[in-house]
């Protein structure tokens, strides 16, 4: 079993077998990050460029650590201190860096489609670390990995994605991935934060959180992007919390062995209360640990694939 593509642009179209391969491989890497010496020589000689055009803490550090733990050489690129400031285009920037002989590029960008665009102008393997509101495949993979570790499966679990569905790349990747793995997926948020025709994704759509989470196994809470509040997409934080905030009282509606997830960064007291975020069923920090194992698995599985194969 191999991944079909030598890039990871998103989970749309990825098969159950491919996702299972990534999750199985991540199990082995999870063991490595528990060892006293958290390093294997697997990617020795491979150079990875981390191209983060958007701020990121977790994803960037997670990728950097994953690369170091696989013994790859990694460099991180910050636009603020580069020739991007002098007007150099993305294409020129990347082609120039690739001329210094890199093998893989991890890219985060505020514009949808940038990872795909890069595959058209460079030879390196490209990994999408989040593009606009399109996809964030490694986040969805780590979410699925975390759920699978707890329940031993993804099939037939009921997963509810709550919050800003419209602007969330995590949501899209999660929907595609979870559906491929046989889970039942629902989304819930204010009408203004639900994309038009979201039901065409094959998910149940709710605007009432209590109804959405009734009988759910997993609630994955998305960040409310406070910066968008100025756009008037919801009246006030307090109203949002009342209608869509995950509170202790609401936990009673869930299935017995429920799980609370959040991709971070959290707005405590807005979309999630402290009690829920720090409760026993919260796997928020475990998601972060698992993220590294999943990213190591993705780097490993794509690293051996050369351009000539396609």
């Amino acid at each position, binding site marked *: 079993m*191999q991944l079909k593509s030598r890039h990871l642009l998103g989970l749309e179209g990825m098969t159950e077998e491919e996702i299972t391969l990534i999750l199985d491989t991540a*199990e082995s890497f999870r063991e*490595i990050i528990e060892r006293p010496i958290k390093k*294997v020589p*697997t990617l020795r000689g491979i150079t990875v460029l981390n191209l983060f055009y958007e701020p990121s803490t977790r994803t960037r550090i997670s990728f950097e650590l994953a690369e170091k733990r696989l013994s790859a050489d990694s460099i991180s690129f910050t636009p603020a201190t580069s020739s991007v400031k002098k007007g150099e285009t993305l294409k020129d920037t990347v082609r120039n860096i690739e001329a210094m002989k890199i093998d893989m590029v991890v890219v985060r960008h505020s514009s949808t489609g940038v990872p795909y665009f890069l595959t058209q102008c460079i030879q390196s393997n490209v990994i999408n670390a989040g593009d606009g509101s399109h996809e964030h495949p490694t986040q969805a993979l780590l979410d699925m990995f975390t759920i699978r570790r707890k329940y031993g499966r993804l099939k037939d679990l009921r997963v509810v994605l709550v919050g800003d569905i419209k602007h969330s790349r995590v949501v899209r990747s999660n929907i595609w991935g979870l559906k491929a793995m046989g889970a039942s997926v629902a989304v819930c948020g204010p009408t203004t934060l639900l994309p038009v025709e979201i039901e065409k994704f094959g998910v149940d759509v709710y605007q009432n959180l209590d109804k959405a989470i009734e009988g759910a196994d997993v609630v994955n809470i998305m960040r409310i992007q406070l910066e968008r509040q100025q756009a008037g997409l919801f009246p006030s934080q307090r109203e949002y919390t009342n209608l869509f905030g995950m509170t202790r009282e609401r936990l009673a509606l869930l299935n017995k062995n429920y799980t609370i997830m959040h991709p971070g960064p959290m707005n405590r007291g807005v979309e999630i209360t402290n009690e829920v975020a720090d409760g026993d069923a919260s796997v928020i920090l475990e998601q972060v640990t698992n993220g590294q194992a999943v990213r190591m698995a993705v780097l490993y599985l794509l690293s051996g694939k050369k351009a000539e194969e396609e």
Partner: protein
Amino acid sequence: MTREKIEEVLDEKGIARAITRISHEILEKNGGAESLVIIGILSRGADIAKRIADRIREIEDRDIPVGLMDINLYRDDTHFKLDQPVIQRTEILFDVAGRNLILVDDVLFTGRTIRAALDQIIDFGRPKSIQLAVLIDRGHRELPIRPDFVGKNIPTAADDRVLVRLNETDGREGVFVVKGGMKKPVPEIVASKKRRAKGGKK
């Protein structure tokens, strides 16, 4: 498909005898089982390691910690191959530091698997000694690696294939040499791979 010449070099009893002899030699060399830990290389090396530990328990009435490891992350040829190996688990749930560690594999060939295994062991700690036990030594070493305990030495040509089949993994027992079969598929191999896939092996 042309018929390959397949020769059986060890049957079920032969494998059992070899494992018993290796177990006695390990105890003899180490003055008992007290300081021992055993690590088998997946997948059949791990099966043989468990059998050696079972035999030692019968002889000495003492349990020895048994670990298993996947060496693929330590291979030096990952990027030369188009097909990447599927990584399995490594499970060493005990401290190797200061112990006499017996590393077990089914077939010793070029020695590159053992080199990778040695690298990985060192990442877990610093054993007092590492000794190598193999069921079959078929020669053709490419590295200066020598086994301490050998079930059976088999002279082979470089392009022969040596197949170890064990009940735990394959549902059958025996060691076979396929003459000149290095590049060609052997019906038994295909069948056994299918069986393993059906068994839901990771």
